């Protein structure tokens, strides 16, 4: 179990889903804060749902309010960065670039990517946490 958890964790790093920031989170986890990483990740996913919904709505309104989209995405990106969600962050940056040039199709397309990565990471992390818990 432990090995499996460790293996999965390493895979996440190797595959670029997570970056050093995640290590920072792990560093902060200790006896006084035994479930810190999981808590923060949970917090992120709960909060990010709100942001994703907000972007969806804004994308539907025409004419597209790029400034607002950029602002929301900036926030979303900030959160993602905090937990070390590397791929998600990359897609967010891409989305912001489309916003800057006012590329609507690009934005819509890219947003799908963002959601995909966001969901994929969630699955993997949940799996990982489960393994880690069982391993304890």
């Amino acid at each position, binding site marked *: 179990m432990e090995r499996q958890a460790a293996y999965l964790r390493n895979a996440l790093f190797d595959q670029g889903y997570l970056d050093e920031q995640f290590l920072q989170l792990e560093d902060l986890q200790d006896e006084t804060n035994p479930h810190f990483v999981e808590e*923060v990740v949970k*917090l992120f996913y709960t909060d990010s749902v709100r942001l994703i919904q907000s972007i969806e709505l804004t994308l539907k309104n025409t004419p597209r309010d790029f400034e607002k989209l950029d602002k929301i995405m*900036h926030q979303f990106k*900030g959160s993602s960065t905090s*937990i070390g969600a590397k791929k998600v962050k990359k897609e967010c940056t891409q989305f912001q670039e489309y916003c800057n040039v006012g590329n609507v199709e690009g934005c819509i397309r890219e947003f799908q990517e963002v959601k995909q990565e966001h969901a994929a990471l969630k699955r993997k992390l949940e799996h990982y946490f489960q393994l880690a818990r069982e391993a304890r």
Partner: protein
Amino acid sequence: MVVEGIRGDAENFPVGMRVLAVDDDPTCLKLLETLLRKCHYNVTTTNQARVALKMIREKKDRFDLVISDVHMPDMDGFKLLELVGLEMDLPVIMLSANSDPKLVMKGVTHGACDYLVKPIRIEELRNIWQHVIRRKKVDSKNQNRSSNQTKAHPASGEGHGSPLAGNTDQNGKFNRKRKEDDDETEDNDNEYEDNGTQKKPRVVWTIELHRKFVQAVNQLGIEKAVPKRILDMMNVEGLTRENKYRLYLKRISTVATQQANMAAALGVKDSGFMHMGSLDGFGDFRTFSGTRLGNVALSSYPGVMLGRLNSPGNVNMRNLTPSSLVQPTLAQNLSSSINSLGKMNLVLPTSNQTPSLFQGIQPSLEMDQLQHNKGTANFTSINNSRIFRTGSAGAALGSSNSLFNSPMSNPLLLHGNTQQPLSGGRFGNQSAPFTSESFNNGVSDPTNENWQNRVDASKIHPNTLLSAEPFHSQLPLNGLRDNNSSNGTYLQNNPIDLSSGLALPPFEDSREMQCQVGPMGDVQNMAQSWSEQRQGSGIVNQKMDMYTGGRSSSGGSALVQQNGKLVTESIPRSNEDFLFEQPKLPSGLAPQGYDSLDELVNAMIKREQDENGEFAFENYSFGAGM
């Protein structure tokens, strides 16, 4: 002492340092909280800026440091930064996922002591305590300098934060001031400190200081240095509030210029023109850069200063380069006034409410003052006091309407110290407890009915000016303006209005700030500087010009010319009427052949008395013009 204490605790210091973390993103906030706890800091968190502000205000020294995100829904991080810096002088660190240099620069200019980019590493947080220590050191140093004056409050970081340098200077200056005016300096100190923490106390002090200042000035005679010092002191305070002031200054700049002009004019007039001194002070202020300076400068000019203060013109104040204006006697006054103003300015910034203050003060002040405008003699004295007032008047005006009632000041108000007029509105905001008084004297002049009409007209314009923050800086100016015109209305409009209100109607384009006839040369400088500030005060300046012209054939003309310039700019047309009045004065005064502005002012005052509305108005215009 404090420093030592800090050093002594240095090893242990970071531990338990009380940090307030503000971030609307829950993920980031939780992460930040944990990171800070890991550094053994005492952490409090909130995801709303307003709540954060409330917590900070509740207990002044509840926190040692604030860390805040830049992008927040309920309040812009920079705004929070400004408020915290101004009011509490706490070190603030900005956080953002955005590393855009422009934002970083913005953070720096708004007073942030550091800017961190997310994601934050714990190493970065381990070092933030240095900001707290540094600030404390500076504060304590400043305090030591001012020794007598500032009480140790490094911890609370009262208003010394940014202008560290300034503070120390001020402190030093302050001390010097002390020599000149023991009382005053002390007061200044008190004010200074108080300013940092509370607006109200400052205002009060300013008035008292003002009085003291006047006394001191009278006793000491002319000392240019003093005003500078005072200004420095005031500047320092202003500096911290720089950001805030800047906003105000912008608005008030016009007014300030007017005031400056007025101040110049006033300064010229007589020693009482502390304004002049203030001009110098302004010069000093300028260095401070904050808009504050402008304000401060204004204060120094009893009339002129006001202008400066209000507007971003504070910066303009620089232009005024009181150096020239600085009338020795005035200098003193100015310095004191400046100090007071400085304080007031300080106060003002914090109290964005100034506009309201002004209004309140002004009306009362004006009325009272105007009525009082008794003899010119008072004027000078009042000027001095007004000078303070103007600075403080801004604030004071609002708050201390009562001040005005003091009959003595009336003459001052008229003087041209225009400061008062400025303050009417402006000061009120700031702290001008002083100003209100002075203003009242001049401003409240009911006799200035003529003016009032005009002022009203002008006021309308200025309102926009004053109403806003610019009011702060402008206060002095506004005060001045208002004073003349029925002030009541005028003041309210805005200190800024002064410029507009005063409508110093381009009465004299040449007005350019030079109003001050006295040191005509100076005046010119002043005028020029004013002109810059004039925006609002433009009108005032005009008056000044007028006066100067009227008074001293030689001097006056200079002024007049200058004023004209100033005035033209800022003054809203409505003031045109006013302008007319102004010319009147000069004519009246002219025969007198006043050489200095002071004389003019005095003359004006007298005239006022004679003319009732006119004179009062005119005096006012000076200030306003400035």
